[in-house]
């Protein structure tokens, strides 16, 4: 098992998924490595979301397997995926508008004591959670105007940053970002892109779904293109092959 270098942190082998008559994934394989941004590209209905949902435990694969650090992982629910170290930030962000950033960070995995009580009956360590969350945001250079206000009062970019930062705290292996800049303006997108670069610099494996070619060329170390459930290409995106990439996505011959 030590033949080559470290195995990829995430590997999908020969994934197949059908929804009734729809063949959503046809023999898709891909790998993601630490310290790398992998772009997952494709037109609407190409199978990106299905693939991501299989990796994050929302759907189960019909055939094929998912390996984490070279070992087969059984990911049968979102919480199992989370326990395995895979964090996914969907477009709805799954934030609690009525809670502060730190409360959002730890919602569902609160730091609390004493350990002998059932989880729900433990007492919150509010200060510890505030401190940890502040440290993470500082490290990721996310500036929030207020730390004690509910996230309802924060902008789209700030909310996105909070959701991404929360994912990175708990993602021991992979962070999946589903169109993180789709709802944002230019300046706010900029900050989220910087944040993604920061995640990579810290050694996370980032899987990025986006429709924005500029972002792909700027950030992605590799791009995997899906079309009609098949993997139709994999390359290192740059200015020179941008047209080729777009051609793969829409299915036109280059």
């Amino acid at each position, binding site marked *: 098992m030590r033949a080559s270098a470290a195995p990829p942190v995430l590997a999908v082998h020969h994934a197949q998924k059908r929804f009734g008559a729809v063949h959503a994934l046809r023999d898709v394989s891909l790998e993601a490595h630490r310290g790398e941004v992998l772009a997952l590209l494709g037109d609407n209905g190409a199978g990106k979301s299905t693939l991501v949902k299989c990796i994050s435990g929302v759907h189960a694969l019909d055939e094929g397997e998912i390996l984490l650090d070279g070992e087969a992982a059984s990911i049968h629910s*979102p*919480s199992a995926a*989370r326990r395995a170290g895979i964090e996914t930030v969907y477009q*709805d*962000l*799954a*934030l*609690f*508008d*009525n*809670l502060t950033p730190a*409360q959002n960070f730890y*919602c*569902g*995995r*609160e730091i*609390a004591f004493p350990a002998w009580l059932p*989880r*729900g*009956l*433990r*007492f*919150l360590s509010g200060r510890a959670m505030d401190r940890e969350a502040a440290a993470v945001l500082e490290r990721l250079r996310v500036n929030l*105007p*207020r*730390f*004690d*206000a509910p996230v*309802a*009062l*924060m*902008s*789209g*970019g*700030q909310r996105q940053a909070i959701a991404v930062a929360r994912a990175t705290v708990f993602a021991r292996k992979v962070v999946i970002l589903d169109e993180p800049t789709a709802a944002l*303006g230019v*300046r*706010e997108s900029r*900050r989220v892109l910087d944040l993604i670069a920061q995640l990579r610099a810290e050694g996370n494996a980032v899987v990025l779904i986006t429709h924005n070619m500029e972002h792909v060329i700027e950030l992605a170390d590799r791009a995997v293109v899906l079309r009609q459930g098949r993997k139709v290409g994999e390359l290192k995106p740059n200015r020179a092959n941008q047209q080729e990439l777009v051609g793969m996505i829409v299915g036109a011959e280059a």
Partner: protein
Amino acid sequence: MRERTNTASISPTGGPAVGGSAISLALRLLSIGPLLILILLAAVIRLLTPNFLKPANLGNIVAQTAVIAIVAAGQHLVILTRGIDLSVGASLALATVIGGLVFRVADSALLVTLAMLLTGLTVGAINGIVYVFGRLPHPFIVTLATLSICRGLALEFSIGHTTMRGMPDAITVLGESSSFGIPNSFFVVFGVAAIVLVMAKAMVWGRWIYAVGGAPEAALEMGIPVKAVLVSTYMISGLCAGIGAVVLAGRTAASSPLYGNLLELDTIAAVIIGGASFLGGRGHIGHALVGALMIGVIRNALNLLNVDVFFQMIAIGLIIVVAVQADVLRNHLEARARAREAASTP
């Protein structure tokens, strides 16, 4: 006017202040609004009728408000989860009747109290279990059903009696008498409020309540045991109705299937008037207490002023409209603050 300047000086607590201080000031004012209105209301009523602030009358208000406040403490937890509990008044009545039946068999304050608390807890558990495991879209219907069932059972069990006289001494002392010049029921309210406060604000369970009310889908995604949280919340609401039953049965030294009529509306009104959000996820026990007190004060004042009882209902209805409007205004202001935040991002 003085309150205005005070709140302005408090507002930039912790961290750099947000731009748009007018909006954040307005949000602050909205959050302490109900308390200000209560104080203002008390001052106006004092001018109209000097009897209002006499200790005996204040004791009256506390005694009359206690039941609403206790049951509203449970209702506020339910509303925090985006729910509603319509059964509290009827389950309170059923609890007093079952307590009354137990009293006929055994003159034991302990047994009677336990019977009432267990009745409330059971009704709450049924509400929660049917709501969650019946996969109902909203708790309105199931708690409406238990309202009807409990009222019917209470009438059935009390065969022909609209009141069943008699309660163990300890319970009447709790409901009726005073210690250190303060009605004992006040201490019950205080105890319930303190426990609810700790559970909601200091314990993981409370954080989950806010999470479920704030974003139910996200709560599931984040691995919060949503079903257990909901069932336990309705159980606590039922338990509060049971505690209210003990206090009311004690105050009247009787039980009745007619007790708690429209109490569900009073408690919901208290929580909303107090400033909690009907949309869930926002509010605290202080809102329930201030709202309950406001209802108690208005009823008391209109009594003192010999105003027709119908006007009490109209007045409370009007205040509910204002409170809900304030909630809408708050959401609007928050959206404005969010837009401003996005525009000012460097």
